[in-house]
């Protein structure tokens, strides 16, 4: 659990990892919430549950996210859910990944691989 390593060591992120950071940057979520967010963002099918939870576990271990307190919710099934929040390191890693992809996109435009910026 080497927390000292530079941000770049975390990059590139897997898509599922980036989605997790994106979701948690907006607020604390449980696993299904993250899947719903991702589905809403890209409109297609979201990451698989197993993939998601392995990533959550890995990222918690790396210190990008942390387990959060359960919100005082009325739903009794909530007791079984794990809530997560993003850590400051997670924010920095997410931003670095976004910048990296933006730079690649710019390069693709200049190189003529893309004809317009993807919206």
């Amino acid at each position, binding site marked *: *659990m080497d927390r000292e390593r530079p941000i770049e060591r975390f990059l590139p992120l897997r898509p599922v990892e980036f989605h997790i950071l994106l979701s948690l940057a907006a607020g604390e979520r*449980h*696993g*299904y919430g993250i*899947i*719903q967010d991702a589905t809403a963002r890209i409109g297609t099918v979201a990451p*698989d*549950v*197993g*993939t*998601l*939870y*392995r*990533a*959550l*576990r*890995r990222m*918690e*271990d790396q210190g990008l996210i942390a387990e959060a307190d359960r919100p005082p919710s009325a739903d009794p*099934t909530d007791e*079984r*859910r*794990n809530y997560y929040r993003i850590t400051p390191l997670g924010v920095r890693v997410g931003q670095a990944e976004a910048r990296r992809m933006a730079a690649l996109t710019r390069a693709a435009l200049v190189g003529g691989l893309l004809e317009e910026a993807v919206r």
Partner: protein
Amino acid sequence: MSEERWLRRSDRWSRLLLRLYPGHFREEMGQALLQTYRDRYRGAFDRRGFAGLAWIWLRALADSLRNGLGERVRPSVSWRRMDDWGRDSQLTLRRLRRAPLFAAAIVGTLTVGLGIFAVVYAAVDKVLVEPLPYESSDDLYFVWRDYGPMIDLERGWVGGPEVVALREIGGPIEDVAATAIQSVTLGGVSDGRAQEVALMEATPNLFDLLGVRPELGRGFAPGEIGPDRRPVAVLGHELWRSRFGADSSIVGSEIRLDGEPHTVIGVMGRDFQFLQNSSVGPPKQADLYRTFAYYLAEEPPMAGSFAGLIRARPGASPARVRQAVASIGRTMDEEVFDGQGVSLYPVSAKEDLVAPVRPALVVLGSAAALLVVVLLVNLGTVLLVRALQRERELAVSRALGADRLELVRATLLEGGVLGLLGGLGGALVAVWGTRVIVSLAPMDLPRRDSIAVDWQIAAVVVGTGALLGLLAGAAPASWAARARLSTMLGAVAVRGSGGGGRLRHGMVVVQVALALVLLSTGGLVLRSFERLLRVDPGFESAGVLTLRLPISETDYQDDLAMSALHERLERRFAAIPGVRAVGAVSALPLTAAASQLQVSFPGAPGNTGDEDRDQPMIDRIATRPGYFEALGIDLLAGRVFDEARPEGVQEAVIDRTLAKRFFPAGDPLGATLMYGDDPVTVIGVVEHARQYDVHRDDRPQVYLRSDYYTRRNHNLFWALRTERSPSSLAADARAAVQQVDPQLAVSDVRSMDQIVADSLRQQRVSAVLVSSLSVGALLLAGMGLAGVVAGAVTRRRPELAIRMALGAERDQLLRMILGEGMRLVLLGLLVGAPGIYLMGRVLRGVLVGVSPLDPLALGAVAIGLVLVSLATCYVPARRVSSLDPAGLLRES
């Protein structure tokens, strides 16, 4: 088919798929994963009906195959790649971090408990176990002279010719050294201050025999003994540091001992100390060393003047050494003592030195070991209660496929980690604790300075902690391993009394039993100490300042000059405001400084006709007239010495014990006492002021005027009785001495109360340690009991609610819960009772004036334990009254 039914089927499907994941993943993420699938199924069903559900089923299968197997091959968390134990310890730490109060309470308890254990362990190890700091120290023996029927003295010093004979016999004896310690005035130091120091005179082979070498310069050469040579001295490290500024050019320079010039030839190392054991009183060590200025063979053979130290040949058995020493003893008995039965015997040097403190240390060691067992059982109880609280979690983990071994590992590790942390804490506490104990410990405690926590001791303490934790973790682990899944789940379902109840109750009983044993030990030791504090030692210690003034014979060469000096000092002291009485004496009470002599009372009624019995060994004490008043020693008959010295007659004051022995009914006044060849007239009888132990009479005492034997009494203690506080008098007393003679060295400035307290140091330390051990045990037992009662109330809430609903009064329920707690306590008392008897046998050598089965102390302890338990049970049991039966019944 309804939606709910399909969702339940989906759930079963997910559970099945979850099996594809490794156990550690299931344990941690299983619940959340299942719930997320549940959410997804519901979402898919809501949106696309059965088709959507089927699609998710398929995807879940693919997902679980890929990720489940992937997780097995390459775990998502780095420490998962470690082995199971490493992984579990991470989990354990995480779990403990989530319960910081629990962890802190446990580690705190262990820290304190193991800290006390470590202090006692360090003392026992350093004093009793570790060998003396000399080469092959097991081959070292002190040799003593037993006077047999001749005089009542079993540990007499040996004579010079005996030492020579022992050295010549060879065989199992490789070498023999002789030592004697005396006080001398150190002069010739650049700061010009005279100081009294302890000088050890020895045969030149002392250092070689011990296998030590000076740090600077050289030791004594074999020929450096006897008269007519330039005296040489070796300095001890401490004296070299304090008086000579650790100046390494000291070797070769000159110092004066009692005015006589000596050449310094060496300085001993910091670690060197040699305790010369003494036939009466505590062992002593020296500030510096020189060789005898005479030949041992020429010393009077009868006189016992030397401590004899034997080095046995390597491999020589103690029995052979004893035989060799005894044979010399027999020869000497024939030749010197006319076969009266005087004998010689060796004692292993270490055993000889530690003999006086062994009983106390054995008691302390046993008490500390018991406390560790209490800690163990206590931690076991707490972990078990915690495991039971996690019953639900465990049951679910098991249901999800966590194997038994994993649960066992988890509980074991939890105990191990807590124990390890507690051990570390305990070792740290002990580093400080040993310093406190050393500062409290008696000055003459053998090897006092070596008591400290070193790496070895720290390692043992940390290891004890870890082992203790693992063992304590074994209790819940065995429960977790044995408990059947159905029982666990059943217990969770009905929330009733779960497993482990009998185990917990058994552990509380054991704790109470051990606490009883420890508390009785503490109670007895405290009561014994309290007896010691209240004992009447034969003098009035309050309001007396004492100091010692050794006077150099070279400065005051004749009796008249010495007497005149004493008178001047006495007048000066008496003139200090607030001083009511001034006295001087050769041996203050409790200093073991008296010299011994045989006396007889020809014609006294108490004579038995048995020559040996009628010539008892007594303590000879020289005093100046004001001494009895200054020390508050009661005059029982006759009078004490007058100010003016009577001409033509020698007077003596005898103590109560001597008077009773020779004049059981009659009047000793005017009787003649034969003191050597000198007839002395008894003029008074005084109380026996105890010389050695505060709690018991020792040798009878004879007081003589110090001005008869001035030359021999140049080293007097002064006692100043004052209306002020004795400590405030010290400066005035020093000033008075300075005015009389600035060259005089004042030493040992202490109040008489301090002397009494110092003589009780060992008992005080024992009392402090044993009572803290026993209070610790009481607290731990209380904690365990409270935990069990609290757990019982929580677990039995449904049952209690039903009872209340059926009409039971709250008081009735409270009594029921209390009764169950107290049943455990009483059972514990019964189990512990035989332990008191066993501990009593260990205690016998330590207690003063208290039987190991003292009904008062033991009764008080038992009643106290019951009361404390009652209170401990009452607090959690009171929760019964806050039960809300209606709510509880709804809940269950």
